[in-house]
């Protein structure tokens, strides 16, 4: 008896923890929500369907619980940044650093024709030297953006840790003119950095920067992107950005969707993904607290008999939970039923899911419109946006969604802006920013 007692106690406690685990995890777990825009589909016809995969970040218990950050601020100090711009940038950086504490690691890199590591990666025990170094940044020279990001990432690598939020915050107001300068090259760099768990947030200041390059870099590494026309707004943007950085709850989300039963994936709306046969893979670098991020996958469903229920796809999400510091896995399936009655189909519509799908489809239209405008086809771009507005309008009515209605109005405005020759540089930057934010559900 004596011998068995402790053993029994061990076993009980073991069972207890095992029971409690899901309960604990419930609070500290990313929520995976799978929905089909049209859960009931028309029978006997091949058709397209939108699958919405939504991920919700759980709530952080408090400031003390947050994940420590490892941030590299990369500032453009080329000649064009002279005057107010650099002053505001310095202020914004200092204010933002002020929000961090001794758990966090910060580094500051400034680039013109060359790159200078102004503050090497350091724990924020003593802020004054960091502030002093930042205040000494002066403007002048060219724009070695690529090298700047490289050195910033290198500073992050000194303390690279998957249990930290690793982020490069890039501020630029000009075209990269030293080193690689094409959006695709910066995109590939972003891709590689994302694999290490580093994301790059790009903040474009003024009207001189290359928005394609900045959105590519941010998009490939799943960072944020913002267009700041007035340098005075930098402080606000930096605050938002750092707010995001400090509310990350999950990282390295690898989402794998496997289409079943002859369903064929067509495209992933808004995000980059890899489609191999019936499988789609994509990744999110991070998920923020109490924030929804979603993907919309357009699939083609083969014709089915009425009354049949079909499993369209299975979804698996692997991620690093920063609250528990463990790797977690979520999965789910998507089912669709088929009916011959149009009314039944109509009634079953999942409004939020369809809304998201419509939003993303319209966003794709908007992107395409910008591309056409770039090729000089102003009329084509305009008509595309008008078509998009019409589509949004009809769906807004059907779903009685004010959000879509607003997006429709926006599309109409954009169509007007598109045709104006002057100010196109600003419009394009605004459009790109808007598209980016919509596609990635950016919080600010």
């Amino acid at each position, binding site marked *: 008896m004596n011998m068995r007692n402790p053993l029994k106690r061990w076993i009980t406690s073991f069972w207890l923890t095992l029971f409690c685990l899901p309960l604990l995890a419930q609070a500290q777990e990313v929520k995976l929500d799978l929905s089909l825009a049209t859960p009931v589909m028309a029978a006997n016809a091949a058709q397209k369907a939108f699958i919405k995969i939504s991920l919700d970040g759980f709530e952080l218990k408090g400031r003390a619980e947050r994940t420590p950050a490892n941030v590299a601020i990369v500032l453009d100090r080329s000649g064009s940044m002279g005057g107010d711009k650099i002053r505001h940038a310095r202020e914004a950086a200092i204010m933002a650093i002020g929000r961090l504490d001794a758990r966090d690691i910060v580094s500051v890199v400034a680039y013109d024709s060359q790159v*200078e590591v102004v503050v090497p990666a350091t724990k924020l025990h003593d802020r004054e030297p960091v502030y002093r170094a930042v205040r000494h940044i002066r403007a002048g020279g060219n724009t070695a953006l690529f090298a700047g990001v490289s050195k910033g990432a290198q500073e992050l*690598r000194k303390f690279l840790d998957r249990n930290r939020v690793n982020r490069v915050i890039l501020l630029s107001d000009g075209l990269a003119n030293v080193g690689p300068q094409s959006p695709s090259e910066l995109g*590939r760099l972003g891709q*590689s950095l994302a694999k*290490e768990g580093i994301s790059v947030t790009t903040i474009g200041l003024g009207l001189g920067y290359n928005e394609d390059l900045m959105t590519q870099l941010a998009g490939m590494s799943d960072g944020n992107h913002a267009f700041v026309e007035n340098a005075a707004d930098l402080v606000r943007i930096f605050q938002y950005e750092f707010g995001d950085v400090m509310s990350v709850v999950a990282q390295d989300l690898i989402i794998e969707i496997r289409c079943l039963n002859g369903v064929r994936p067509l495209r992933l709306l808004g995000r980059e993904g890899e489609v*191999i*046969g019936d499988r789609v893979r994509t990744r999110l670098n991070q998920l923020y607290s109490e924030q929804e991020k979603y993907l919309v996958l357009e699939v083609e469903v083969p014709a089915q008999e009425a009354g049949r229920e079909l499993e369209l796809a299975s979804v698996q999400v692997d991620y690093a939970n920063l609250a528990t510091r463990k790797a977690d896995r979520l999965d789910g399936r998507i089912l669709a039923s088929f009916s011959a009655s149009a009314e039944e189909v109509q009634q079953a519509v999942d409004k939020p899911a369809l809304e998201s799908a419509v939003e993303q489809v319209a966003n794709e239209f908007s992107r395409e419109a910008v591309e056409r405008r770039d090729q000089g086809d102003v009329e084509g771009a305009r008509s595309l946006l008008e078509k998009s507005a019409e589509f949004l309008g009809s769906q807004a009515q059907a779903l009685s969604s004010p959000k879509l209605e607003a997006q429709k109005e926006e599309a109409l405005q954009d169509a007007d802006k598109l045709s104006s020759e002057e100010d196109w540089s600003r419009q394009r930057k605004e459009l790109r920013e808007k598209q980016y934010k919509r596609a990635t559900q950016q919080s600010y």
Partner: protein
Amino acid sequence: MKYRAALLLILLVLLPLLLLGWLGYRLQQNEQQLVGLQLQKLIEQQLESVDQQLQTHFQQLETLLQRQAGGLYRLADPDYSAERLRSFVKNSVQVQQLFVLGHDDQRQFPPRNQPLSLDEQRLVERLQPLWQSPGLLRPADTDPAAPSSLPLAETEPLAPSAMAKSADYFVSGQLAQRAPAELSAPMNDYAAKADAYSQAEPAAPAARQAEAKAAPATSTESGWIAWYVDARLMHIYWWRDPEGRTLGFVLNDARLLSDLINRLPDAGQGGEDLGEAQIRLLDSQGGTLYSWGQYRDNGPALRSLGLSHPLGSWSLEYHAPALQQAATPVWLTLVAPLMLLGVGLGALGYLLYREHRREIRLATQRVNFVNQVSHELKTPLTNVRLYAEMLQQRLDGEADPAVGRYLGVITDESQRLSRLIDNVLSFSRLQRQQLKLTPENVNPDEQIARILETFEPLLRQRGVEPRFDAGIGQSLNYDPATLEQILNNLLSNCEKYAPDSGELRVRSWLDGSLLCIEVQDSGPGIEAGDRHKVFEPFYRSSSRLTDGITGTGIGLGLARDLARAHGGDLTLEASESGACFRIRLETRT
């Protein structure tokens, strides 16, 4: 004459200046060349060390990729699973894409009969020509150091400078061998981290250990391919597994550049290392990829160096202020002392010149003084002579013979004195080129006889017996005063230097238009060494005062000058005994 002294002085100042300047310049040039060479060498070393750093990156990358390839091979069962390869690519930071060729060079991955992702399709399209060129991944020469350039189209192994047709750039080869000690920690650590995160490879660590043990034995074939395709430089590392299959790792070009940049110093560090210089990393088009160092000007590079394979199309450039500019202060250090020296020498020269001028002025003053005095003496002397002669006539025959003798002495001495004064005046006139000849129609024989007659008492007194052979016998047009002065000088010399010598022969004849007179004494003659000097002014063949011979030393020189001024000459002829002078005077005016 007037400017000669000044000219000489200027030369004296300029010559050493020029010489020193030239020498200094040469020295400086040599030194500059030497410094330039040393600098070039230093720059080259610096660039080479950068190249080495970049090479080290590739070495470490190679080690990492080799290990990862080994890991993949160990997991192959027996074929490589597409799933595993894809997950490798997904997690690999450096590798963008991967391909596997079978031992028959047929593509195994990306899989042939399965759907591919967009990226994979693009890769296949792009690399098709590479896979089709036979033997590319099986180089025949196993020389590890030399990168072999295999022509895909008609490409040659291009020097980095000749990269105009960069679209054709294609080089395949291996890294230069380096001591394994250099291939140390950082990348390996990182690799370990990367592996730890890749959940898809649970067996990787074990595999790596096995590979690490086997590594020295399995030095399987591998190599690097650098290929310029679609306006971007593609790097492929290929590795042959023991079963003859080839794994090709297509690197993420942006990441590769980023990593290379991170191996190079940043602006702060670079500024400290290089000082006033800049090193640039250039791509094949000559665009700057990265630069560091404080020097910012855009000029031609002092030196450029092509990088080693697989970055063969890239180059490094070293920029710094040009050497000449750097040498300017040195040039100043040469010029400044030279200028100082010049000023010093010039001042010295000027002082000397001024001194010289003053002396000349003094001398002129003295000559003028003597002239003046002579003139002043001449008038009273003439009076003395005149009255002495008048007195002699009055007393002729009446008085005491002693009185006559006294008067003779007065007359003689005053004559001598007047000759002396004439000499001095003529001398100074000759010096000032103010001598004027006044030719008259005179019979020279008569004049000579008269002069000899005047000298006769004096000569007799000194034991010399004059004898005159007149040989002209006609009147000629010449300046009798000049002839008289010349003869006076010769005769008084004879009286002074050849006492008690017996016969003094004077001969005259006409040689064409030249009036010639020869005066030959029987005295001691003139030593051979003195023959040329006797005509120099102020020279006396015996300067010893104790000789008791008086004289000014200008007599012979003056006589010759007078003869020359008269279109003739006075020469010292060779003779067996005594001195023989010959006077020649031009009589044709």
